[in-house]
């Protein structure tokens, strides 16, 4: 199998030579955008107040979840409805190791990523081995997340439905991944995670494995026919996706300091990952970040607007739940008007 891959490989890369050259240019832009993200991330804590920074943290966590989901579903072509599973594994592994073993959350995060990767590869292997496809595959991922949620809810060692509370330490403690409430460190670390996740995505997509993955997504049968080991590449992209999502789980835990089965494995988590990526653009490197910048602060912005509404909106003040309605309207509008997501639509338009 592997020898035939090697033999076929040159012809594949020759065929894709034009996009390769084009992507060298877009690569330059990607690095530029990455640098911009880093600069903005580094400066934001100086501009924002602590409360706004906690909203900005939500943007980062959403973006990481979106990037994770996008890897597997956008680039890998396997629609996942159960990314809560990997997010939850990341958060719960870290919490369990921190509280019951006393392990630093940094190490806990690594272990969580490893466990999530193993779980993702295991499930995907079974699903792909038995050719569970399309909607059925999506349902199997959903079922797995639900299964984990119910398992945790019934497991005494994981505190059942009570969840884990991270003990508050005084002052900044890098070793234990904990800082004072208004510390910018959380945001900087989050930005660091985000940059790493973006770089991993970029490097992966540019690598041979990444190209094979996309070829597999676009036409699995053709890819298999020219000798691409379809299963291996699908599992690889799933593993990367799970690891990124698990890291988001640890970041969530350390910032919010509380996690329970609903927060970690609930449907809302999977939905957030999907909505973020779909709104920004499925299969677009920058899609999830753009999606997160819009989705994560939306409810806060609407709530802030309605707290002291301008005159023409005065009749809406004091109405609770309105932000959810507006959120829904924006989502519906986006799906109708921008079916390829924001980044996807812009790229398509500019190509015409």
């Amino acid at each position: 199998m592997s020898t035939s891959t090697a033999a076929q490989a040159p012809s594949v890369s020759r065929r894709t030579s034009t996009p390769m050259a084009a992507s060298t240019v877009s690569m330059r832009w990607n690095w530029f955008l990455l640098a911009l993200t880093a600069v903005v991330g580094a400066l934001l804590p100086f501009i924002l107040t602590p409360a706004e920074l906690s909203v900005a943290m939500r943007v980062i966590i959403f973006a990481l979840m979106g990037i994770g989901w996008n890897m597997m579903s956008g680039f890998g072509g396997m629609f996942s409805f159960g990314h809560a599973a990997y997010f939850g594994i990341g958060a719960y592994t870290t919490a369990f190791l921190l509280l019951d073993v006393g392990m630093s959350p940094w190490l806990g995060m690594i272990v969580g990523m490893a466990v999530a990767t193993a779980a993702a590869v295991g499930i995907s292997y079974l699903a792909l081995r038995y050719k569970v496809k399309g909607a059925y595959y999506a349902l199997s991922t959903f079922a797995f997340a639900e299964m984990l949620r119910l398992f945790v809810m019934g497991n005494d060692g994981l505190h059942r439905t009570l969840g884990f509370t991270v003990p508050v330490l005084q002052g900044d403690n890098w070793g234990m991944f904990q800082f004072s409430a208004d510390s910018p460190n959380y945001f900087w670390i989050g930005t660091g995670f985000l940059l790493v996740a973006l770089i991993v995505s970029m490097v992966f997509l540019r690598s041979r494995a990444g190209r094979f993955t996309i070829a597999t997504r676009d036409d699995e049968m053709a890819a298999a026919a020219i000798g691409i080991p379809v299963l291996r590449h699908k599992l690889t992209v799933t593993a990367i996706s799970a690891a990124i999502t698990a890291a988001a789980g640890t970041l969530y835990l350390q910032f919010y300091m509380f996690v329970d089965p609903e927060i970690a494995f609930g449907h809302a988590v999977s939905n957030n990952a999907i909505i973020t990526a779909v709104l920004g653009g499925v299969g677009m490197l920058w899609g999830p970040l753009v999606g997160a910048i819009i989705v994560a602060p939306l409810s806060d912005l609407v709530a802030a607007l309605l707290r002291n509404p301008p005159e023409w909106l005065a009749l809406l003040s004091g109405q609770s739940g309105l932000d959810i309605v507006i959120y829904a309207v924006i989502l519906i509008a986006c799906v109708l008007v921008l079916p390829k997501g924001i980044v996807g639509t812009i790229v398509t338009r500019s190509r015409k």
Partner: protein
Amino acid sequence: MKKEEGTVKAATKLILVPTVAASLLALVGCQGSAALGGDHPDDTAKEVVIGSLHPLSGANAADGQQMSFAAQMAVDEINEAGGIESLDGAPLRIESVDTKSEPETAQSEATRLIQEGASALIGSFESGPSANISSVSERNEVPFVMDVAALDSILQQGYKYSFRIQPSGSMMGESSAEYLDQMTKDSGEDVTKVGVLYEQGNYGTAVEKAFANRIEELGMEVPSAISYDPASSDLSTQVQQAVAGGVDVLAVTGYYRDSLLISQAISSIAPEVKAVYGVANGGFDQTQFIDDAPNGGAGYLNANYRLDVTDDRARALSARFDKGFGAPMRASAALSYDAVNVIAEAVEEAASADPQMIRDAISHSDYEPVVVNDGRIDFDETGQNSHAAVSVLQVKDGAIRTVFPNDLAETVYTFPAPPTSAQN
């Protein structure tokens, strides 16, 4: 080839522009929201702000809106009576926000309230959001008085700035067991087996554990403890499991809707039990339950926190609330009313809007609450009101009455009170 590069360049430029625009927009938006906030600690002498965090939308909005209204009522009363005397009549102000039942929202809103100058916080009905607000208030050194939040572990973190008026989940479970024991003994009935049904969330789990342990310590048996998902649409199987093999009393811990389903299942299964006993049950003591439950829920017992109906002040408050809000006052709203008053008294004593000074005054609060309490409020070193108490209620003659302990009772309890007696 060159042309291709050009379009790609244009394309990426087009990605860049909205990304930057969007991030700037987010920035501007955030700045806007801060500017709207206004008040900063410097002018707190003129006004003392209390942040109120409750679920104003979503599944628990009915309680959250009552609680928010009660908090506002408490503040209005204090301001009408002349505000905070020791601060030259400075008024209190409630900043009421929606937690949406989400811990993340609770956290960002609590942070915002503190940053905008709140001197203290109250909240939040649910344990998840409350746990997050606790950690925010601890790290910002601003006192947080929990009106409703049963999860024991919130106050087991060594927090100095968190207080709870409501009895904790384990306190409610234990008292419920003790009251059941006393009531059955007083009425000369022999109760040896207690079946337990509880919702599987953290509230049900915490209460059930303490209840079942205490029941066994008191020499009774718990042959079956069955948990259920409160979102289920039918609970007959679980009721059957809980009463299988014969139990004398069926104890139920749950929310409104699921407790109603249980009462319906009990009505159709008609188990031979001497009573159905709610343990911190959120359904059996709602006026709505009498309308919805089979047979008017007659005879159902429930041990829970409650407005002290033997107290004139509490009765007058309940009447005012009913008039203002348009629905009967729930015990949760009474607890919010108490939480605001605890803070107001502390501000009065501290003669300051400084959160740390208020925290110190709260820690030795001597307020007399409108909810059933063992005397005045007394926060122990963890922040738990150690005098928090439950009373037992029973549905009698189409109304919910406090029946135990005897010194708080409106009327005598009926035991045994089989749930199907009227039909037989």
